[in-house]
């Protein structure tokens, strides 16, 4: 514990080192303040998005530059700002501290720690709005980003540098997918940033605890802003997170960033825009809400080898209302991203969790990033599930159906069951491959559907205990050789006898 003398000593040192100098500022006067916005008279030289400082040290961003006043959004509470207060230009664009010191921390959109673990020791800062890497600075998505979720890694593969949207109604497991993906990056040398935009503080606290327990917090930064804070902070949060990710990407690291969720982000921007009296468009969103998200998600990239080959993979989340994917913000973000993972409440309540609708979900670029081993087992799975979807309506009449249709229904049912996966239990690529290989070869056909989960879990344990070289081989080569296939067949036959 620090004592009063020490505090006095620190203060004295600060006072002694304080340099007195004449300050030259450009100032304006607050003429109106309310709803976390201020209208400022003067500040004629201020530039768009410049940071300004109020008399009490509170910061704001100049957003609307009008003929005789400037609209400033206040980054915090407006309770101490009065009409007539002076507002000072800073000449800077809003920036946040960046670097590896932020890993393991929970910060607000200004990069200030909110986890009570003391100050963040970094001298690197980065502006929150940056131009996305250009065409020559990038290369195609080519390495897989393993989510550890069978349904996604097999059917909707995600590559490093991709933007894959997670979309669905409330409580269909959107965040769960993102969190499992973060947990699965343990030991993969991928840094994670989770941006919680307007999430309840209790949710964020619970989430950081889970990540801590799973050992995932050491490579993760959480940028959190609660619904009780100013709309301007919610608007800044994803940009601040992206700036933190970019710093690591530019150093050649791989980064995963989750924006949870962009629906609330768009709503915060709408709130701000309407209060700034910008003209409302469809669903009262301002005209540039598309640009807001496109410029944010464009910053996700796989950099060229000359620039270090770092990457930033973005998993934006969108919440729909009653499955309305055709609403304004969902369609915007669907068109911006490189694919989407659809979650539906119907599947969720049927017990199919993660509730991924594999028919509607796509990944537009991830296929080229999928490992050869996974590709070789996923093809058949895709086909069988597609056939199953076509026939699913007949499932209730299964006794009256011909043999082939019955087989297809049975296979579809097994595959669907096998794609179920409990939360917080991501699976390694090699284990997924072994499991899906077994399923594809029909080793699950005689296992009752209700016992399939137990069979799958048991098989992986069995494999690691008795045939550890097979998964190791798949993991190191990324391929499923004919030799490995033979060994897997032997292992599966042996396991099925004992099951």
């Amino acid at each position, binding site marked *: 514990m620090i004592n009063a003398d020490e505090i006095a000593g620190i203060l004295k040192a600060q006072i002694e080192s304080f340099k007195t100098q004449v300050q030259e500022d450009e100032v304006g006067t607050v003429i109106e303040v309310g709803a976390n916005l201020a209208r400022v008279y003067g500040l*004629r030289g201020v530039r768009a998005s410049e940071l300004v400082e109020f008399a009490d040290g509170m910061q704001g961003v100049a957003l609307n530059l009008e003929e005789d006043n400037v609209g400033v959004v206040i980054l915090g509470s407006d309770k101490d700002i009065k009409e007539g207060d002076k507002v000072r230009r800073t000449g800077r664009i809003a920036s946040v501290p960046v670097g590896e010191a932020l890993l393991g921390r929970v910060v607000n959109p200004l990069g200030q720690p909110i986890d009570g673990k003391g100050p963040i020791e970094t001298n690197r800062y980065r502006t929150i709005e940056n131009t996305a890497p250009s065409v020559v600075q990038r290369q195609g998505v080519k390495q897989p980003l393993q989510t550890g979720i069978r349904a996604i890694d097999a059917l909707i593969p995600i590559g490093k540098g991709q933007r894959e949207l997670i979309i669905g109604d409330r409580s269909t497991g959107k965040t769960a997918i993102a969190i499992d993906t973060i947990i699965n990056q343990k030991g993969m040398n991928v840094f994670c940033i989770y941006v919680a935009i307007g999430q309840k503080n209790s949710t964020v606290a619970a989430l950081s605890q889970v990540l801590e327990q799973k050992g995932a917090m050491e490579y993760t930064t959480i940028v959190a802003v609660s619904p009780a804070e100013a709309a301007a902070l919610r608007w800044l949060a994803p940009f601040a997170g992206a700036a933190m990710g970019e710093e690591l990407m530019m150093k050649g690291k791989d980064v995963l960033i989750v924006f949870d969720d962009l629906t609330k982000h768009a709503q915060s921007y709408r709130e701000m825009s309407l209060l700034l009296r910008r003209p409302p468009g469809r669903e009262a969103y301002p005209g540039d809400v598309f640009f807001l998200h496109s410029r944010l998600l464009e910053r996700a990239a796989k950099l060229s080898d000359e620039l270090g080959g770092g990457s930033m993979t973005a998993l934006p989340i969108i919440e729909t209302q009653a499955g309305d994917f055709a609403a304004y913000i969902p369609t915007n973000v669907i068109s911006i991203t490189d694919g989407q993972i659809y979650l539906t409440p119907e599947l969720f309540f049927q017990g199919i969790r993660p509730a991924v609708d594999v028919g509607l979900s796509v990944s537009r670029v991830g296929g080229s990033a999928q490992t050869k081993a996974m590709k070789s087992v996923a093809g058949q799975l895709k086909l069988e599930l597609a056939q199953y979807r076509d026939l699913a309506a007949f499932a209730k009449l299964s006794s009256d159906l011909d043999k082939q249709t019955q087989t297809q229904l049975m296979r579809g049912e097994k595959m669907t069951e096998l794609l179920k996966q409990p939360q917080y239990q991501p699976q390694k690529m090699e284990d997924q491959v072994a499991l899906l290989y077994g399923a594809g070869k029909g080793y699950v056909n005689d296992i009752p559907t209700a016992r399939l989960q137990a069979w799958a879990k048991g098989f992986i344990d069995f494999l690691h205990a008795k045939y550890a070289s097979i998964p190791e081989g798949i993991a190191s080569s990324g391929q499923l050789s004919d030799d490995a296939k033979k060994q897997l067949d032997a292992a599966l036959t042996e396991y099925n006898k004992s099951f």
Partner: protein
Amino acid sequence: MVGEKLGRRYASAVFSAAGDFDAVERVGSDLAAVAGAIDGDPLMRDFFLSPVISRSAKERALLEAFQGKVHDVALHALLLLVRKRREAVLSVLVPEYRKLQMASRGTDPLTVTAARKLTESELDALVSRLQSLYGKKFEVNEVVDPKLIGGVRITMGDRRIDGTVSGQLEALARTLFSPN
């Protein structure tokens, strides 16, 4: 700052009308005097700004009070404000008019705020240094504010140069209370 835009428009109209009569200075000082008189007396101000009092009554009063004493352009400007129900604009019109006057003379406004009254030589030295620094001519407005404790604060439009003790204290307070 409601009516600032409006005040600027009225000011530029009055300014150009005054220019036609070659009476820019006279109209400016007359308007300032009238505005000062109206603003200085609560009764006058209530009368002038009240929406209850009819326009004709106001016009009569203005004519009686100022006809022959102020330039016709200034008087007509006042009558126009009354007729258009824009009496409140007068308080904005006067400073805007002054800005136009300064712009036409090629000078900029400069406010020097000091804790005590500066001597003439101090002020001259300060202003001539600023003029050579910014390459501008200034019209100086001097203000004394003991709350500054010491030093001077210079305001040129939006630009503020603060060399006062109170400003230094504020900056010190900011660094002591800042989160880092």
